[in-house]
């Protein structure tokens, strides 16, 4: 079934040329189930340019309700760029232009009267490197509710913080030192704190950009468990370089290649029976 051929560059090059010969390179048709019923987030014809360089080509992809969507692909293929389109973090990059239609619950987020602040309160984000604010654990969690005016009296804020920490599975470990600096936590704890921080404002969607790449296997396992629990309440999109992680936590998987969305499918089917040759090469470890 799997061809034994010298891996890496050669096959990738072969494939690129094959794609070019089969089709025009900037018009790759995505294969698979990129649309779902009643999507939480729907993206239609999304293209991103950094200056003159095009980073994403005509992406059509939905995020379903209470689903974990894994975004995989080799480095520089546009996974993170796509993720950052959904909460408009690309706005902060100079020279970045996003075209196409991105809707959350049917509302266009790039619309001229769409407010980026309220968008980001609906779409939380967790970064590759844990980035707690250099403040206390409590203040880290309370920051979002404070700036969005979600908290009333002090004890209400206490409840919000406690709930968020419990959901992130961090409460037991830090309940007795809420007012110590967050930077004193271990890497895995910091990352769970960042997740708690993101869910404290009750978002609808959580974007995770390789949340476990800086963590050890034990911390990674905890986060993966957490992601599975969070699925009950949130829609999650996770960028990962680990095929195993994608297989463990996600329901659907999208494979990106050089700015194109090559294939989207139900995770189990995708890893056992990919429809595109490019996908197969990647998940069997032939390149990337």
């Amino acid at each position, binding site marked *: 079934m799997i061809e034994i051929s010298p891996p890496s560059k050669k096959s990738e090059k072969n494939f690129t040329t094959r794609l070019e010969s089969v089709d025009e390179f900037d018009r790759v048709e995505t294969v698979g189930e990129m649309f779902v019923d009643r999507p939480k987030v729907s993206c239609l014809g999304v293209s991103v340019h950094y200056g003159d360089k095009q980073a994403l080509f005509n992406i059509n992809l939905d995020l379903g309700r209470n689903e974990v969507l894994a975004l995989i692909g080799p480095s520089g293929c546009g996974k993170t760029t796509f993720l950052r389109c959904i909460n408009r*973090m690309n706005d*902060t990059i100079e020279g970045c232009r996003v075209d196409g239609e991105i809707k959350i619950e049917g509302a266009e987020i790039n619309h001229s009267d769409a407010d980026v602040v309220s968008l*980001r309160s609906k779409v939380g984000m967790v970064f590759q490197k844990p980035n707690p604010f250099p403040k206390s654990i409590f203040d880290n969690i309370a*920051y979002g509710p404070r700036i969005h005016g979600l908290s009333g009296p002090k004890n209400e804020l206490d409840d919000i913080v406690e709930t968020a920490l419990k959901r992130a599975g961090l409460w037991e470990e830090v309940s007795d030192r809420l007012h110590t600096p967050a930077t004193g936590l271990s890497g895995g704890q910091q990352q769970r704190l960042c997740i708690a*921080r993101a869910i404290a404002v009750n978002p609808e969607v959580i974007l995770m950009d390789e949340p476990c790449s800086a963590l050890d296997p034990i911390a990674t396992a905890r986060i993966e468990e957490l992601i599975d629990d969070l699925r009950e309440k949130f829609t999650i999109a996770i960028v990962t370089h680990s095929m195993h992680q994608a297989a463990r936590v996600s329901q659907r998987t999208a494979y990106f290649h050089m700015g194109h969305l090559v294939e989207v499918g139900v995770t189990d089917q995708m890893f056992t029976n990919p429809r595109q040759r490019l996908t197969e090469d990647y998940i069997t470890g032939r390149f990337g």
Partner: protein
Amino acid sequence: MNRGFSRTTGGKPLSSLNIRRQRAERRFRRIGLFGVGLALASVLFLLGTIFSSGYSAFWRLHFAVDIDFDPVLMNVSSDPSLEELRDVNYLALFRKNLERSYPEVKGRSERRKLAQMFSESVPDILESLVISNPSLVGSKQRIWVLSSSSAEMIYKGAAPRDIEETRRVLTDQQLTWLDQWQGENLTRTRFNFRFFTSGPSRSPELAGLGGAIVGSALTLLVTLLISFPMGVAAAIYLEEYAPKNRVSEIIEVNINNLAAVPSIIFGLLGLAVLLNVFGLPRGTPLVGGMVLSLMTLPTIIIASRAALKAVPPSIRDGALAMGASPMQTIFHHVLPLAMPGILTGTIIGLAQALGETAPLLMIGMFAFVADTPSGILDQASSLPVQIYLWAESSERGYVELTAAAIMIILVFLVFMNLLAVFLRKKFERRW
């Protein structure tokens, strides 16, 4: 042994290469050490000279004089009113008392020489004594008064004693008096409080830095109030908001150039624009502070931008992703982390401004201002300008004053730098 052979095999020649390298290493280290030593020696020499010629200014020589507050001599009634006491000729009172105490001194010129042993301030001292305590009238008191600068210079050894009379600051007769009083315990030295409270004076023994210190403080306050908010705001805009294009590049280059512009140019600008066009009052801390803030701005902007740049972008991303607006991100997260660096830059900039003389001379802050300025719209002097003026004065008494004033300004500079270190240490946060 064949040297050519060993060279190719790399045995001996390699070790000779090693020796050469080690020698070069040692030589290089010695050169560096020599440089450090030279710099240190110059600083020590500088401090040593300043201290040795300046420390004596903190002590003043006083002479005891017996004063008979005789109502007849003062030409007042036996129970005088304050009005009467204000009208008394205290110089005459002092002179007549000297005549009584030293009846052996005859002749106008001899008597004048005797009076010249004392400071010109003696009548003022007598007046304030009597006014504050009118019951002195009719009593005899031994009063300690300031010596003249010339007598003091001889006493302190700052002026040569063993030279011919015409070149000496005191005459032979005056020298005899000085020795005589010293023998009779009629001399004493006391700490020179006046140096820190009074303004400049024609007489070195009366001159002080008080006015200059207040003038400098007011000037620095204006500088701080203008340059700190403007500098930080400019740095934030350039670092966080400005698009990176040709225009912002030009602005950046210009700010860096501004930091290297000679300070006198800023003084000329102040003279031409602030004084002549806007007609602001000449020689005031307001104008001085405005000119110095032009000079301090680039320093603050450059330091603040560096501090802002050092804040990890992940903190910004985290805050923005939480839905904080750019302004909230800056004020809640970025600025607190950058503050130690910004404060350090500001204090270094202010320390530069404190030592700046040329621009203040251009805008007229060199006037002889006897009064301590009470606001930023009063004519004022400043520390470095005062040093400049004293250094120019020909009287010997100003030499020690100049050195002492330099010591004071150095103390202020060291204090400000320590404050910068302290603030950086205190507010520095790790992440």
